[in-house]
């Protein structure tokens, strides 16, 4: 039970969802005047209730910074000292955000673990004082209440939250490679029970307000209000404040008890957790699960378990001490630097650097109702885009429509949507076999089969019916966009939008611009991608663009390694233990062997020997036998409906045997195999930067992690070079170069970094 709740730490990274902190944290440089006017927190008094308002200046979100912390201490001291005030309400003045978490830059600025520990201890002291306050404090939560914000809220005597989609509570620290360092590890287990607390802290998941109420994380819910005499959002916050005030008064008058009635299951769990043996079992189970999921690559989850354990077994003093120390240690780890780097990269890739497009895309048309086309439709209709899904055949179209419906219906089952919302969203989709309505389209995304002549035909057909302003985007994983655009009457309107499968799960969108693509076309494509909820990298055109191009040499190496006699299962376990979410052989099956073959051939032609290595014949033979991977039921593995455990496809033995090559023992240790894969990936990524395909290393890291599953704990290829050391990587490449030749020759930019140790991709 506990164990299965703690599942999916690694899985979470593919859905790395940190919602907060869009903007950067603005430092408050007016420290000297802070005594006179407070800039982050202020309070007013209504009757005998103090209303404490949080409002970080010049930012869309509130973050727990040093300034906010010190002002909070000041304000609380005044409130405690005042005779007039009997209770308090803590509320944010920012719509959609209570407190989004601690200021990451504050942690990043620390040089030693001791500095971070000190920050943690200060926060612990403040929150402990707050927890013991004799004047009740009610946290009125509207919007994201995450990390340090949640730790602050759970230290209050009572919590009231708005029941809307924006209001989420959670402890996402683990996703940044750290732990809740302001008493969260100690308070949460007491508040929601040990199993639920582990689940929260180990997955970092966001909890919606209604669920938080059921868990006991909040005490009351307030429904959002509609239009009245003021804008709904404004009045809702005002109403929240009014409700919070009545509860604050009730608490001060002892008319309301802050204690919550626990359900039977909760009581039983709580009772079970008083038995030391049960506790030990729970720790053991959770730890096992975490080890299995993280492969020991992420230190934070284990430390979280450790800290919680310390608090429960040795008392809260020891728990707090352990929490602050481990917090300090974790903040200095490579993993946490890598994860925080990804976080910053993600914030960057959620912006439209081309500015607002001249015309908003409202009508979207998608050609091809295959897996990709329907996936793109699915992420578009629920954002309110009127979407046409066109296919050549009724069966193909029907399959695509069903895919969209199923995607929405699954959300209904998970209660993320109501059936009514599903229906009204689904009505944004029009399925058709002809070009009717294309004259209104603002953008057409084609997702037809990867065949240049087909794409040319489609482009010509579409250009005959679309209006002048309409953007033509091609969803291709390897065909150069400029070649597709060659037959266009208006190449400035042609762009590449490379989605990743499954579209509704994968966050990345790679946008490819050609020399001729206009800035406004790019702006339109990015705007649509952002609307679809994607993290976006914009790259230059070229064979394989960025993502496919990095993956191809690694895949070539996968084939060589298999040819050298390494079992696909062994290869999978080597890659996953390096931090890839999916094993290399499984990845080929998932992508589709035919697609892999296609890409290998195309890019092999374009880049020649550097992309060599494995014999593409392997893929050719697999395709001819119909081993296309998961979609055909057979690839390296056998896939059966309803069967979870994968078995090797024994028919592959013949193919592998016929193409067997002898392994080279000097480069065939487990570690070498891992590095042969990763160094080829990294080398190609750096070459993309060198050639200007990539604009920034940050985009390269985001693309690799979110599109290709590059180990998040390494932070992406560029962060990896920085943290691992360019010299060490070059040394490895040279070793493999000696064994295999040109495929491992380090590129110039990487060599430059190795030669001057001060050069870093991230300064």
């Amino acid at each position, binding site marked *: 039970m506990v164990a299965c709740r703690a599942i999916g730490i690694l899985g979470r990274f593919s859905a790395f969802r940190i919602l907060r902190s869009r903007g950067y944290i603005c430092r408050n440089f007016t420290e000297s005047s802070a005594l006179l006017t407070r800039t982050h927190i202020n309070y007013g008094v209504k009757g005998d209730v103090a209303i404490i308002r949080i409002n970080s200046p010049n930012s869309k979100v509130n973050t727990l910074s040093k300034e906010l912390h010190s002002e909070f201490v000041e304000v609380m001291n005044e409130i405690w000292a005042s005779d007039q005030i009997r209770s308090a309400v803590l509320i944010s003045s920012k719509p959609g955000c209570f407190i989004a978490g601690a200021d990451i830059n504050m942690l990043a600025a620390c040089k030693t673990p001791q500095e971070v520990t000190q920050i943690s201890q200060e926060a612990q002291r403040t929150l402990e004082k707050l927890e013991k306050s004799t004047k009740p404090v009610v946290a009125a939560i509207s919007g994201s209440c995450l990390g340090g914000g949640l730790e602050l809220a759970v230290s209050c005597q009572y919590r009231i939250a708005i029941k809307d989609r924006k209001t989420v509570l959670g402890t996402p620290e683990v996703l940044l490679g750290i732990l809740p360092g302001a008493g969260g590890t100690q308070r949460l287990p007491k508040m929601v029970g040990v199993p639920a607390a582990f689940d929260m802290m180990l997955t970092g998941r966001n909890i919606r307000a209604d669920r938080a109420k059921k868990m006991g994380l909040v005490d*009351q819910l307030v*429904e959002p*209000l*509609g*239009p*009245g*005499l*003021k*804008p*709904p959002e404004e*009045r809702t916050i005002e*109403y929240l404040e009014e*409700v919070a005030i*009545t*509860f604050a008064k009730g608490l001060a008058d002892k008319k309301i008890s802050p204690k919550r009635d626990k359900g039977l299951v909760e009581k039983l769990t709580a009772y079970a957790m008083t038995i030391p043996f049960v506790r030990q079992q729970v720790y053991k189970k959770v730890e096992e699960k975490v080890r299995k999921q993280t492969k020991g690559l992420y230190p934070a989850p284990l430390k979280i378990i450790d800290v919680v354990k310390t608090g429960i077994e040795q008392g809260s003093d020891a728990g707090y001490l352990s929490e602050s120390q481990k917090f300090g240690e974790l903040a200095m780890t490579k993993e946490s630097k890598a994860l925080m780097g990804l976080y910053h990269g993600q914030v960057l890739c959620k912006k439209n650097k081309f500015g607002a497009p001249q015309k908003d895309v409202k009508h979207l048309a998608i050609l091809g109702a295959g897996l990709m086309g329907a996936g793109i439709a699915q992420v578009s209709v629920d954002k309110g885009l009127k979407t046409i899904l066109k296919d050549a055949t009724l069966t193909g179209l029907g399959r695509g429509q069903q895919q969209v419906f199923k995607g929405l219906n699954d959300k209904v089952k998970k209660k993320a949507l*109501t059936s*009514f919302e599903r229906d009204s969203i689904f009505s944004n989709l029009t399925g058709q076999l002809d070009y009717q309505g294309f004259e209104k389209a603002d953008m057409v995304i084609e997702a037809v089969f990867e065949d240049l002549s087909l794409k040319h035909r489609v482009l010509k057909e579409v250009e005959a019916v679309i209006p002048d302003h309409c953007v033509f985007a091609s969803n291709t994983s390897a065909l150069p966009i400029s070649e597709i655009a060659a037959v266009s009457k208006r190449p400035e309107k042609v762009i590449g939008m490379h989605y990743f499968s499954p579209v509704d799960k994968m966050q990345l969108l790679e946008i490819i611009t050609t020399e001729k693509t206009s800035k406004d076309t790019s702006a339109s494509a990015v705007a649509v991608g952002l609307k679809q909820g994607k993290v976006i990298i914009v790259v230059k055109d070229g064979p394989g663009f960025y993502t496919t191009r990095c993956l191809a040499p690694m895949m070539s190496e996968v084939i060589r390694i298999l040819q050298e006699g390494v079992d696909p299962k062994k290869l999978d376990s080597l890659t996953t233990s390096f931090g890839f979410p999916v094993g290399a052989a499984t990845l080929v099956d998932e992508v589709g062997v035919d697609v892999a073959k296609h890409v290998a051939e195309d890019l092999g032609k374009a880049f020649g020997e550097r992309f060599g290595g494995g014999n593409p014949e392997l893929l050719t033979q697999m395709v001819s036998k119909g081993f296309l991977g998961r979609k055909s039921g057979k690839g390296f593995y056998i896939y059966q409906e309803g069967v979870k455990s994968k078995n090797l496809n024994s028919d592959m033995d013949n193919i592998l045997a016929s193409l067997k090559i002898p392994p080279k023992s000097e480069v065939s240790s487990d570690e070498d195999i891992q590095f042969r894969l990763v160094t080829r990936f990294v080398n190609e990524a750096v070459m993309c930067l060198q050639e200007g395909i990539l604009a920034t290393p940050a985009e390269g890291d985001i693309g690799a992690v979110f599109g290709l599953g590059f180990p998040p704990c390494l932070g992406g290829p560029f962060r990896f070079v920085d943290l691992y050391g360019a010299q060490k990587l070059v040394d490895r490449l040279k070793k493999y170069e000696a064994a295999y030749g040109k495929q491992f020759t380090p590129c110039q930019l990487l060599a430059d970094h190795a030669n001057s140790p001060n050069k870093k991709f991230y300064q």
Partner: protein
Amino acid sequence: MTTILTYAFKNLHTTSKWALRFSVRPLSCSSQLRAAPAVQTKTKKTLTKPNIRNIVVVDGVRTPFLLSGTSYKDLMPHDLARAALTGLLHRTSVPKEVTDYIIFGTVIQEVKTSNVAREAALGAGFSDKTPAHTVTMACISANQAMTTGVGLIASGQCDVVVAGGVELMSDVPIRHSRKMRKLMLDLNKAKSVGQRLSLISKFRLNFLAPELPAVAEFSTSETMGHSADRLAAAFAVSRLEQDEYALRSHSLAKKAQDEGLLSDVVPFKVPGKDTVTKDNGIRPSSLEQMAKLKPAFIRPYGTVTAANSSFLTDGASAMLIMAEEKALAMGYKPKAYLRDFIYVSQDPKDQLLLGPTYATPKVLEKAGLTMNDIDAFEFHEAFSGQILANFKAMDSDWFAQNYMGRKTKVGLPPLEKFNNWGGSLSLGHPFGATGCRLVMAAANRLRKEGGQYGLVAACAAGGQGHAMIVEAYPK
């Protein structure tokens, strides 16, 4: 069945006596009031339009509105509807065969009598040659019945229409679960014993969990009371204001009942029970008593309580509508004209109950009248909070500009002309029947108080709303 019919026949005698007594009243009263008519210059002398038929209400009646689960609890909806129809026949003495068409509104349908209008008409002794249909539009179903009738007459298809509505909340259809229904239907089709047994083996105990109808929006799954509470909060309507308004409604209803002003009520001899002569939900209380109640929907801090909401009600209403020339030819003295009307709809989530705010200015503009021209306002009171929220919305420039596309606010209806004889909060609210009650209250008030124009407005589930102008028939 036969027993019910015999009861009904017995009833005819008793009801007729009552009906006579009641129908005499208004005539005797009106002379007193005519002495002091509110003289006011109107924007328009009348709403009669050239080349358009005038449509009149000859008269309208209703059964007493009862709290559900009381005297009507063993009836079926068509029984109540029939009582209203027979009451109307007695009140107006209209020859049954003259009626061209019958339309009833209802919300929660009894599956056995899904076209309740037809079943009730047949039982009430209308000609079996008179067609009847049933309409549904939540709380404005009876309004829809009336305006459908208006449309039939205006377009020249009919001359005489009976419109009404019925709701019996004492009994609602509670269904088997979908799974159980499917199992039973499949069992019906199963041919062999083996098929039956294999189907029965699929039965699980949870199939027996019933499906209850809820007064909740299908689109949002929110109950109406909950929405009303949020609406009240959005417009910052306090609990005290709501309780005060509810108290006003109950006090006025009590006064009207005591003074015999509720002349549209016809007594109903309930089979096996005593004759019901008056509404039983009127219960003026004190603010202190009301303040003690806990919120009913948003607990524990909401403001909508049982005391400031309309209650579940059983009742039926019916009304005789005719083309003016037909009514005059038949020697009737009509009570009122039915004039311009409008239906509106808006967001069912956050503006569920704001129909009157949207409908009022539109219908006034359509008729070419202003708020000042209206002598009698009859608004449907679903909740105190809903009425007061509508007031605040109508009184707000900000709301008018941002949500209604108007430059200025709608303006407040003067309270002294508003629901003077009580409203749905106190008289009760049988969903399908309220519309006719509103129109008859407006018509009777205009006759009694001497005004010319009445405005009827109501909100309904689905975020819809309705308003209609009623013009007093010249005496």
